[in-house]
């Protein structure tokens, strides 16, 4: 922007101050927007289609203004998901299928806005994705494993974001991630011989990410609220230390026993690839 002299400079300074104080998004708003947009990007770039995106973004607004009926719908969602996991869903809506992104989107419509109900629903969704990973790995379905793991990671990020500032909720998510980490390790160790190497790589990457997320939660304990994902910005205002909840928070080494996975002999060596992390994301980058 060109700098003019005298009064113009004064005007520019006042407009800059106005923009800075009155028009800039909060750190939290920026983190929220990024989480949602990147979720849409993952969905659209993974599916190669963006047909349903605008509607899904509007559901964000609808969700925020949600009422009691959505909480009820959340319970229905939980029940429905359990049935779906137990009985199997339509083939097209299974992980890796053409309707899988739509199914995931439908799940988000009825998510409770926040609080314990939201955490409940997120944990149910995480569990569902984990079951899909196990089932797909058992079948050696590479695309399904990748799709389910991608969805799992997004839900984990969203769950942590929704739990921000709620130590108990973060602990519940952490415990679930910890357990899933053990499950993934068991799956990776027992992949069937016909499973492709890429399945192993995907699972190894998911293990790596889950581990990193858990480490991040641990390191944030007693500090500012946890923000999900490598791209999330830290809270502007540090929050007080989380209350200790010893009964709910087993030590990192106290892994529950991995869920038995009915998959056969070991596979080749893992070949984890680190994700790209946007450098300097935390800063303000107004062009």
């Amino acid at each position, binding site marked *: *922007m060109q700098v003019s002299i005298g009064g113009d400079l004064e*005007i520019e300074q*006042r*407009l800059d101050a106005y*923009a800075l104080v009155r*028009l*800039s*998004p909060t750190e939290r708003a920026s983190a929220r927007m*990024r989480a949602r947009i990147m979720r849409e990007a993952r969905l659209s770039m993974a599916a190669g289609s963006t047909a349903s995106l605008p509607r899904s973004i509007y559901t964000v607004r609808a969700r925020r203004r949600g009422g009691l009926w959505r909480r009820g719908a959340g319970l229905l969602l939980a029940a429905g998901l359990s049935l779906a996991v137990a009985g199997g869903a339509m083939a097209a809506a299974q992980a890796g299928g053409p309707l899988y992104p739509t199914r995931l989107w439908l799940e988000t419509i009825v998510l409770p806005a926040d609080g314990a109900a939201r955490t409940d629903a997120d944990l149910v969704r995480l569990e569902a994705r984990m079951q899909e990973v196990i089932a797909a790995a058992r079948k050696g379905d590479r695309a399904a494993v990748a799709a389910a793991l991608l969805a799992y990671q997004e839900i984990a990020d969203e769950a942590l974001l929704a739990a921000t500032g709620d130590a108990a909720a973060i602990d519940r998510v952490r415990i679930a991630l910890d357990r899933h980490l053990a499950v993934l390790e068991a799956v990776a160790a027992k992949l069937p011989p016909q499973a492709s190497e890429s399945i192993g790589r995907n699972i190894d990457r998911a293990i790596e990410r889950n581990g990193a997320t858990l480490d991040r939660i641990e390191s944030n304990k007693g500090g500012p609220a946890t923000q999900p994902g490598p791209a999330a910005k830290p809270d502007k205002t540090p929050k007080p230390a989380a209350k200790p909840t010893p009964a709910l928070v087993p030590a990192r080494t106290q892994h529950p026993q991995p869920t038995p996975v009915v998959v056969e002999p070991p596979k080749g060596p893992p070949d984890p690839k680190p994700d790209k992390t946007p450098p300097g994301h935390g800063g303000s*980058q107004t062009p």
Partner: protein
Amino acid sequence: MTIDDAAIERLVAEARSGDQWAFGMIFDHYHESVYRFIASRVQRPSDAEDLTQLVFVKVLEALPRYESRGVPFGGWLFRLARNAVIDFVRTRHEHSDLEAVAERSHGDAGPDEIAIVRQELDAVGAALATLTDEQRETISLRFFAGLSAREAAEAMGKQEGTVRGLQFRAIAALRRQLGITDEAIAGAEFRTPRQVGVTNDG
């Protein structure tokens, strides 16, 4: 961090080929300026947030069809943002920014707004409300979003000279509204330093 135009074009090309990381970088680079532009045109911060997301979803949709052809990406992006705001205002029957800018100033002051600064900012909000739509849009794109005159012209679908003219008249009107004269500026030299750190990014 600043990213030059060539780097932006590279990121856009990578995002077009499905690179999520590149798209994330584009979002990081532009989201604050898009939000500021939108926030200056709609009433509620929640609407600004929703619309900012909508703009980036539209970017996702439109990226495969984007061709630079000498048009700066920022101008293209802000054209999407501008259209999103226009659609929003039209469908909501909301007169977005005449009184809203002034309304925004009251009641929700943050901790970093001390009394003197608050008065100054209220005055700026009120002065902005007196501009014409085009003048205000120009100010929003040039000062709040930080676009170059060329990018602002692309976003508004006007000639660069027209945008410069709008900006000139808008600043003159703001000077009048805010009582900024050469004498006032000379007097201000003797006042205490400003309490809000502002920058001129050139």
